[in-house]
């Protein structure tokens, strides 16, 4: 048991923080601690979790991607247009098109990174501007409201009225999110390719000497994020019932903050799906709780920012770091 706690320190710390915040919020509001609210939370966090597990894979492989959220916007828009041409389509064709386009846009990043040895932050800041600039240029910023009915109508897979009158609902976004989470978990922990991704992120030179195909690693990592971005984009369109070209602009940094809060390391080799999901949930639970507590929506963004800042500071601080002379190793690591 001690070993489990040790090797999953971030996850347990996050759970503890979530528990403390939940306890606090359930004392000051009566609606927070209910199943109904819990499922509400899952519904609203679905898209971010889908993005987050995708980004996690890229971080594990030692990269970073700034462009995935605007890539998701591009996917949304193009998918909506293609579906229009096809005369409607269905969930199956929608997901196939969105996923395929997402992979394509991710592959563009991987191509630039691998072929021309451009480091991922430079390459994806460039593609961020290209994707977003072109999207806004060609769409002139016009939103799409007449989406196919199957896409905009809510799909409730399970509902149940609780004794207190609130509803438990599992909607389609939650199901898709669950599938993405489980698939990503299985992919990175249970398959050989997933382990190669970890190894590549941990020690790229070591991985290269083992004959791991570096190019393939980049395409797989960015392709996986692209797939998640595509799926997440379509689900976001479903959830919002419209496609607004700049709706996801800026989301990349929020998701990045959540994923790293969940223990993924910038630089690669480290991170878990559980931590990543908890990172997103911590932020949405805080927002949701503050909302229920009647705090101004303008204020809770500020509070969330402060919480992340404190969390990052604490998670990086050990006593000996603050007191340099307590260090036993003379500064070597």
């Amino acid at each position, binding site marked *: 048991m001690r070993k489990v706690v040790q090797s999953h320190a971030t996850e347990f710390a996050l759970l503890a923080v979530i528990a403390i915040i939940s306890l606090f919020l359930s004392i000051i509001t009566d609606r927070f601690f209910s199943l109904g609210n819990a499922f509400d939370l899952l519904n609203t966090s679905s898209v971010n979790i889908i993005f987050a597990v995708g980004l996690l894979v890229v971080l594990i492989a030692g990269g970073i991607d*700034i462009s995935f959220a605007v890539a998701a916007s591009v996917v949304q828009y193009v998918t909506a247009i293609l579906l229009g041409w096809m005369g409607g389509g269905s969930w199956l064709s929608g997901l196939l098109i969105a996923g395929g386009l997402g992979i394509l846009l991710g592959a563009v990043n991987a191509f*630039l990174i691998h072929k*021309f*040895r*451009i*480091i991922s*932050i*430079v*390459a994806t*800041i*460039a*593609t*961020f*501007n*290209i*994707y*977003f*600039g*072109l*999207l*806004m*240029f060609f769409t002139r910023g016009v939103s799409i409201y007449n989406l196919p009915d199957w896409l905009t109508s809510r799909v409730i897979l399970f509902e149940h009225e609780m004794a207190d009158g609130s509803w438990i609902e599992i909607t389609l976004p939650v199901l898709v999110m669950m599938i993405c989470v489980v698939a990503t978990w299985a992919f990175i922990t249970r398959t050989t390719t997933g382990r190669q991704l970890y190894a590549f992120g941990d020690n790229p030179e070591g991985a290269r000497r083992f004959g791991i195909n570096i190019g393939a690693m980049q395409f797989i990592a960015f392709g996986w994020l692209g797939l998640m971005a595509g799926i997440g984009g379509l689900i976001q369109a479903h959830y919002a019932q419209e496609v607004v070209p700049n709706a996801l602009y*800026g989301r990349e*940094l*929020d998701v*990045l*903050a959540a994923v*790293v809060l969940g223990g993924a390391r*910038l630089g690669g080799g480290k991170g878990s799906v559980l931590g990543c999901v908890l990172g997103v949930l911590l932020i949405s639970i805080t927002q949701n709780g503050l909302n229920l507590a009647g705090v*101004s929506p*303008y*204020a*809770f*963004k*500020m*509070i*969330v*920012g*402060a919480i*992340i*800042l404190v969390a*990052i*500071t604490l*998670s*990086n*601080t050990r006593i000996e*770091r*603050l007191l340099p002379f307590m260090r036993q190793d003379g*500064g070597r690591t």
Partner: protein
Amino acid sequence: MTAIVNRTRALLGPEMAGPGFALLAVLIFFGLGSPQFLSRATFGSVAFQLPELGLLTLAMLLPVLTGGLNLAITFTANIAGLTLAWVLQQNGGVDAGPVAFLLGSLLAIGAGALSGVVMGLVIAYTRAHPILVSLSMMIFLRGLGEFLTRGGDVSGFPSFLQPLGHGSILGFPVPLIVFIGCVAIWHLLLTRMKLGFNTYMIGSNIEAVRYSGINTRKVLVLVYTLSGAMCAVAGIVMLARFNSVRVGHGESYLLITVLACFLGGVNPFGGFGRVIPVFVALVVLQLLASGLNLMGANQHLATAVWGILLIAVMILRFAAGRIKFLKRKKG
């Protein structure tokens, strides 16, 4: 003659090749493509648009040189602008006097510096990744700004601020003069001062710098403090330009400033990069936007072309590295 060439090369460094080439390409392309391009009007519009992005890029440059990043620059600028706006409004709004403006500007720069101090302290003492620290600072400042303004505009400033945003002295726009002044200060800081020297060294290997007897924490805190103060200058210029402050103003510049740094030859891992090539890169970006504007495109297309330009320069650098390598292999 060779002495002059060598001196220029020493001043500009090898980083100049990319932006210099891009500048030439843009001038030739649009010069041939559009007769109005090489005109006073183009350069006038560039001169007025350059400073906001430019000042923010200077704010980004220092942290990037240390191997970090400051993602909070745009909202720091907003908060600094709000500080100035608040002081002006407390002193009569449109009737506020120059003293209130000076006081407000000082407070604004103080507010910007404060956000930098906090980030610098966290980064220096906890070794948390600068991307995360500045990202959470960005989320915090955005929330703070939206909380204070409820998402609205703050306006109603004295009319003597107009020239700061739109006026010219001897034909040079005032914001441009402010910007060039700041470029000069940054250039001096990075080439002639101990802080600048240590900034580069830290970017390459902070532990080795610490072993050399340098207070690396102080350097990091100062770097982020100066970055925050420079954001405040940008915030003040933006207030004067738009005659209002809105949180989120200039948000889209955030990643463009990083793009401009990389385009200007700054090493993404830190340790190398100069002010002048970054300045040229900024001019190229604005010329591109103006040129495309003349041809009937909007800012969004320009944004996309900026991204393409960055990739083109990176690919050319890659190719140049390859050719050098192959040449050496042959010889």
